[in-house]
């Protein structure tokens, strides 16, 4: 085995790319769950975003339009979930699972004509000055805009949840919808907005896979990334920065094990392939073993303002 073939600079640069879709999807789901809603349809919204973004990207030649459309499609799909669970009071777990199935089916239907085409992709955005720093520059500051966007979104989500009144209200609704309702907050509206945000993030995440990371369309190409995003939210104890750690860890181990496979490591491929899942879960369990876990108290409960 030839470890010298693994370049640490490239490794870190590619782990950021590999982690970005999971990071975006997990961040969206974190906001949804903070509002007290459990949307298990992340995978379905991601793959729908992937094909919608890809189709628009190919047809218009503009990946930016593709991303925008992917966000809209993800949000629309999540709107269906929102109407079902918030107005028609359907069970969130069953509806979320249904959403995943719908998303997978819908995307392969839309995607048939797009198989085997290469899409336009995002250009790298070298940040001035920062990208000239040796080693650190190419590692961290020479990526496409979505990578920066996803990290900025982590910071924004963290700050909004922690310091803003809107964030406080969102957390309050997720903590006790009855109490929030009694104080006069519009529980359903707030949750619907959170669900839409989650859908848009999942759509972006999917489009990032089909427009940047791969970049082409294959059926079922999200390959469970949505489920990993869901797991990361839980193991990150609903904290944005821990979501970043979780996503980068998962992305990092994924890239590393691919490199190890290429370098011919004497470890069975099956073990290497499952290592990202095992290591991510193990590390996040250790992180969240101490202190309170912070699950929103009203998570997954149906709210009806009849009392």
């Amino acid at each position, binding site marked *: 085995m030839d470890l010298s073939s693994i370049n640490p600079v490239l490794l870190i640069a590619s782990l950021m790319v590999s982690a970005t879709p999971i990071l975006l999807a997990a961040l969206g789901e974190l906001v949804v769950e903070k509002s007290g809603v459990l949307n298990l349809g992340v995978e379905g919204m991601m793959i729908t975003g992937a094909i919608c973004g890809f189709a628009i990207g190919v047809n218009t030649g503009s990946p930016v339009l593709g991303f925008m459309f992917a966000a809209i499609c993800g949000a629309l799909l999540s709107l269906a979930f929102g109407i079902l669970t918030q107005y028609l009071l359907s069970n969130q777990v069953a509806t979320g699972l249904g959403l995943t199935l719908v998303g997978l089916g819908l995307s392969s239907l839309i995607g048939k004509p797009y198989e085997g085409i290469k899409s336009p992709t995002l250009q790298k955005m070298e940040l001035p000055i920062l990208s000239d720093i040796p080693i650190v520059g190419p590692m961290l500051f020479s990526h496409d805009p979505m990578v920066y966007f996803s990290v900025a979104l982590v910071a924004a989500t963290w700050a909004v949840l922690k310091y803003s009144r809107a964030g406080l209200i969102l*957390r*309050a609704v997720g*903590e*006790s919808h009855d*109490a929030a309702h*009694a*104080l*006069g907050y519009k529980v359903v509206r707030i949750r619907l907005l959170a669900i839409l945000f989650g859908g848009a993030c999942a759509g972006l995440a999917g489009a990032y896979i089909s427009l940047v990371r791969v970049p082409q369309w294959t059926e079922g190409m999200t390959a469970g990334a949505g489920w990993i995003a869901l797991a990361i939210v839980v193991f990150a104890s609903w904290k944005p920065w821990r979501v970043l750690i979780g996503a980068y860890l998962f992305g990092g181990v994924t890239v590393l094990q691919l490199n190890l496979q290429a370098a011919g490591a004497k470890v069975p491929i099956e073990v290497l392939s499952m290592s990202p899942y095992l290591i991510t879960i193990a590390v996040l369990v250790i992180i969240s073993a101490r202190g309170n876990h912070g699950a929103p108290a009203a998570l997954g409960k149906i709210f009806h303002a009849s009392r």
Partner: protein
Amino acid sequence: MSDPLLRLSGLTKAYPGVVANSDISFDIHAGEVHALLGENGAGKSTLVKMIYGLVKPDTGRMTLNNAPFAPSAPSAARLSGVAMVFQHFSLFDALNVAENIALGMENAPKQRDLAAKIKEVSHQYGLPLDPFMRVGDLSAGERQRVEIIRCLLQNPKLLIMDEPTSVLTPQEVEILFKTLRQLKSEGTAILYISHKLEEIRSLCDTATILRLGKKVATCTPADTSAKELAEMMVGETLHVPERAAGAFGEVLLDVTNLSLRAPSEFGTALKEVSFKVRAGEILGIGGVAGNGQDELLGALSGEVSSTNAVSLRGRDISKLGPQQRRALGVLAAPEERLGHAAVPDMSLTENALLSAAVRKDMMRSGFLNWGKAKAYAEHVIKEFDVRTPGPANAARSLSGGNLQKFVIGREVLQDPDVLIVNQPTWGVDASAAAAIRQSLMDLAAKGAALIVISQDLDELMEISDHFAALNEGRLSAIRPVQGLSVEEIGLMMGGVHDSMEGAA
């Protein structure tokens, strides 16, 4: 008298099938403590929800300081100077005190300024609070302070309090009343909702009594006896439970050094709880909620097993489960009606079967006898005056009071030797509560041993022979109820045991 602060004229609100409020009019003046009295379902909650902007009246109008007042949402009511302290606290456990208070305010200031303000106001009114404590870690009394401070920070002209004392110890009630009197002297009007008539008589200037959605009277509570107030609420002569004081028989249930670990992060550990209950005796166990009541019931009913701590007629039953204990005659009715005492989506027949199958012989070699189960459910419904179309109705469809009657009746009619009940009349109106208490006393008179866990001290004083209080999982000394003063009870509930033994 000057113009009223708030005037209600002809407020009416109907829901499908019920008229919650019908043509209600009365005035509240600045600096007045106005009581709103009525049984469950009399329409008190609907009325205050209209004042607080949570519900819109169908007809009728309100004026605040002579200006039309029709709040479309609680925020509008708050802006007009109306604040409300809820019965079931509208607090968020995972958030800290300052965040909770900010959520209930329009234009909340920055956290740091708010924290300083909270400290200042809470000291001014004798309700000290740490703004950065997690609300989930506070006691019931402290949680209520959070609600009150949240209201006070907005300088309300009218403060609505929905059953504020139901979760407080007598000492905490005194502190609250002091604060309320201070507010009154500053000119704040208070609309005070309570079941507790003595409280109303000592605190309130005026009382409006509702029955079945209509106003039946406005009176001065200090000049009206508690019995008269109760009769106006109920609309009939109140039957006060009575019993003949009999001699006690042999010791039926003996609990010795029962210690159990807390079942969860939010539970309470039981610490060396010991008591004996004899045939014909009712032991009342008081204490503020969350001091081990649920855990004690679980250990006695058999949901949680212990080691050599619980024995029936000298036989150790600490390892037996609920069904085995039922077979021996130890029955229990837990506090939470839906989900613990009864399965919400099952019919009353099925719910009757779940508890009574063993004692009422509803099973034959593993097969259920539905005929017997249905007959037993009908028997309970008839004996305990449960208002429901029939035993095929789901437990969930019953009102709280009716379901409570069913749950208690289901156990009492099984002729238990030992019956443990937790909060037997929680949320039940006065006449139904009297009926439940009477049935418990009759059961004791027939020679059963009863343990009544309750937060309603008046209830415990009325029906029990002996009294003890739970405090942080420890049981106080057991005292005869006769001659026990409110101060002594307060100390027992607050966990001051040692001085009590000297007094006993």
